[in-house]
C-alpha cells in the first residue's frame, strides 16, 4: 500500500502528482474464497478489513452489486454518537465510537472524524424526562452525556432559536461532546484501500443472485452476475436489501425496508459548529466541511425500495429547521435523495449467526447505521472468524424476537431514529 503522509505529498508534488496509484485493485472474482462479504458499504468493507487484519483470514471477497459506498454509506447524514439508553446498546455504539477515535490513523486514511458534539434538543416535558433519563443511564455506562439549559444550548450552538413562544420551544438539550460527524465516502474508501492492501478482493458490479447450500444445509457459495463463487463462510451486510439476500438462503427476516431521505443546502461559510438533532420534530442538521448544511428527514411511511421518497417528508423537516434556525430561512436546498433502511421491530440491529450454518448477518441498523460502521464491521468479522458472537453483539441475535428479549430502543426514544 502506498502510505499517505505529508512527506509523500511533497515527494509526489515534485513529479507533478503523476506517481499516485489506484487505491484498490479491480480484480476478477476467484473460484472460491475462505469468506465472502455480501455488500460493499462501510460495514461490509470494514468486516473484510478486520477479518484480514485481526483474524488472519485474508482470502476474502467483498461483493457489491453497484459501486462501493453507493448505498446507505453514501446517503446518510454522517452523524456519530453513542448515547443510547440500554446497557447492550450503549456497549455496542460506544465500542464503535471508541474505534472512530483511532480510525484515521489505523487506516492511514483521513476519514475526517470530527468530535464537534451532538446536541439533542428537547421541546416538551416528555422529551426532557426521556433525555435526562438517557443522560443518567449513559453516565452509568461510562458514556458521556450532559444536560444543558436552553441558554447553555444556545451558547454551544449560537444559531439555535430559543425564543419562548415559538411553535417548538426549546426546553433544554442533551449534549454528547464525544459525538460528531465523519466523511462518509472516505470511510468506505479508507476501508477498501486498507482491506485491498491485505489481500481482500473488492468486486464491484457483482450482484448476488443465489446462495448455494450442501445437503447438510451449510453454505457452499454464491451465484452472482459474474459467475459462481465458492465460500464456506458468508457474511451478509446488505442493509435495505437484506430480506432479499436472506430469502436466497430460505430465511425470512424481522425486517421492513423504508426510504429515509436527506438533503443538502448550497454551501456557505462555517456557521454551524455542531450537530443538532430533534427527534420530536424530525430534524437532524450539521454543516459539512464543504459548507453545505446536511439535513436528515424522517422515513416515508411505507415499505419501498425506490431510493427516493415523497417531497412532503423533507418539507416537514425543513419547516422545523426554519423554526429552530430562522437564520436559514432563505437558504436554498441543492440536492435531495433517499436510501433504503432496514428496520427491525425493536429498532436495534441484528448482528450474529443465522439458522443456516456458515451464514452470518449484520442488518437492521435502520436509520442509524453509519455511526456504528467500525464497531459493526469489527464484530461481524469476529463472529465470522470465531463462528460465535462477541459478548458485545451476543444480545443482538436473531433469536431475541422469539425469546422476547427485545432491546427496545424504539420505545426508549419514543420516536423513529
Amino acid at each position, binding site marked *: 500500500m502506498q502510505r499517505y503522509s505529508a512527506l509523500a505529498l511533497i515527494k509526489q508534488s515534485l513529479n507533478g502528482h503523476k506517481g499516485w496509484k489506484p487505491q484498490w485493485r479491480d480484480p476478477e472474482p476467484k473460484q472460491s474464497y475462505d469468506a465472502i462479504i455480501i455488500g460493499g458499504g462501510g460495514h461490509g468493507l470494514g468486516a473484510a478489513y478486520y477479518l484480514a487484519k485481526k483474524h488472519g483470514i485474508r482470502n476474502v471477497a467483498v461483493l457489491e452489486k453497484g459501486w462501493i459506498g453507493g448505498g446507505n454509506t453514501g446517503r446518510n447524514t454522517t452523524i456519530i454518537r453513542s448515547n443510547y439508553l440500554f446497557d447492550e446498546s450503549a456497549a455496542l455504539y460506544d465500542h464503535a465510537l471508541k474505534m472512530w477515535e483511532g480510525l484515521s490513523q489505523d487506516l492511514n486514511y483521513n476519514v475526517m472524524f470530527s468530535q464537534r458534539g451532538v446536541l439533542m434538543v428537547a421541546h416538551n416535558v416528555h422529551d426532557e424526562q426521556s433525555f435526562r433519563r438517557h443522560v443518567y443511564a449513559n453516565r452509568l455506562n461510562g458514556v458521556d452525556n450532559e444536560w444543558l439549559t436552553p441558554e447553555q444550548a444556545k451558547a454551544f450552538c449560537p444559531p439555535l432559536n430559543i425564543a419562548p413562544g415559538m411553535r417548538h420551544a426549546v426546553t433544554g438539550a442533551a449534549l454528547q461532546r464525544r459525538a460528531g460527524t465523519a466523511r462518509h465516502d472516505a470511510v468506505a474508501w479508507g476501508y477498501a484501500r486498507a482491506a485491498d492492501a491485505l489481500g481482500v478482493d473488492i468486486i464491484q458490479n457483482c450482484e448476488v443472485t443465489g446462495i448455494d447450500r450442501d445437503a447438510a444445509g451449510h453454505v457452499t457459495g454464491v451465484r452472482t452476475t459474474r459467475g459462481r463463487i465458492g465460500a464456506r463462510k458468508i457474511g451478509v451486510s446488505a442493509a435495505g*436489501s437484506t*430480506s*432479499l439476500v436472506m430469502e436466497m438462503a430460505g430465511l*425470512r*427476516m*424481522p*425486517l*421492513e*425496508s423504508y426510504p429515509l431521505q436527506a438533503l443538502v443546502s448550497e454551501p456557505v461559510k462555517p456557521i454551524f459548529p455542531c450537530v443538532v438533532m430533534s427527534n420530536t420534530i424530525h430534524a437532524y442538521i450539521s454543516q459539512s466541511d464543504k459548507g453545505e448544511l446536511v439535513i436528515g428527514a424522517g422515513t416515508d*411511511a*411505507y*415499505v*419501498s*425500495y*425506490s431510493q*427516493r*421518497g*415523497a*417531497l*412532503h417528508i423533507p418539507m416537514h423537516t425543513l419547516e422545523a429547521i426554519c423554526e429552530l434556525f430562522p437564520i436559514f430561512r432563505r437558504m436554498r436546498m441543492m440536492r*435531495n435523495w433517499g436510501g433504503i433502511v432496514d428496520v427491525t*421491530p425493536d429498532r436495534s440491529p441484528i448482528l450474529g449467526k443465522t439458522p443456516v450454518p456458515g451464514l452470518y448477518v449484520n442488518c437492521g441498523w435502520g436509520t442509524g447505521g453509519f455511526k456504528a460502521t467500525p464497531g459493526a464491521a469489527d464484530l461481524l468479522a469476529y463472529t465470522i472468524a470465531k463462528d460465535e458472537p462477541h459478548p458485545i453483539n451476543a444480545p443482538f441475535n436473531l433469536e431475541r*424476537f*422469539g425469546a422476547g428479549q427485545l432491546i427496545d430502543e424504539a420505545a426508549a426514544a419514543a420516536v423513529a431514529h
Partner: protein
Amino acid sequence: MKLLPPRSPIKGSQEMLLIPCPYCGNRPEIEFAYGGEAHVVRAAAPRTVDDTAWTEFLYFRKNPRGDHAERWRHAYGCGRFFNVKRNTYTDQIEASYRIGETLP
C-alpha cells in the same frame, strides 16, 4: 372497485402517493396511515400456536421488492382500513380492495 391512480413510476419523481380508497376514491397520501403487510392473520386460538409461529406472526414480514399487499387506513377521511397492492420498487399502486376481499 377499479381505481388506478396516475402515480408516475419515473425514477426521481417526488410525488407523494395518490391512494385509491375503495370508499372515497383517489386521495393524497397524507390523508392515510400505513398499516403494514396485509393478510397477516392472528391465530384464532393463540394458545395452541407454538413460539415459532407466534414470532412469525408478530415480527417476521415478507418485505419484498416488487408486488406487496399492504393495509392502509383513511385516517383523515372515512377512517376505514382497506388493502392496497403496490409495487415496492416503482411505488406504482396496482389495485385497492376492501378488507375481506381477496388480492386481485
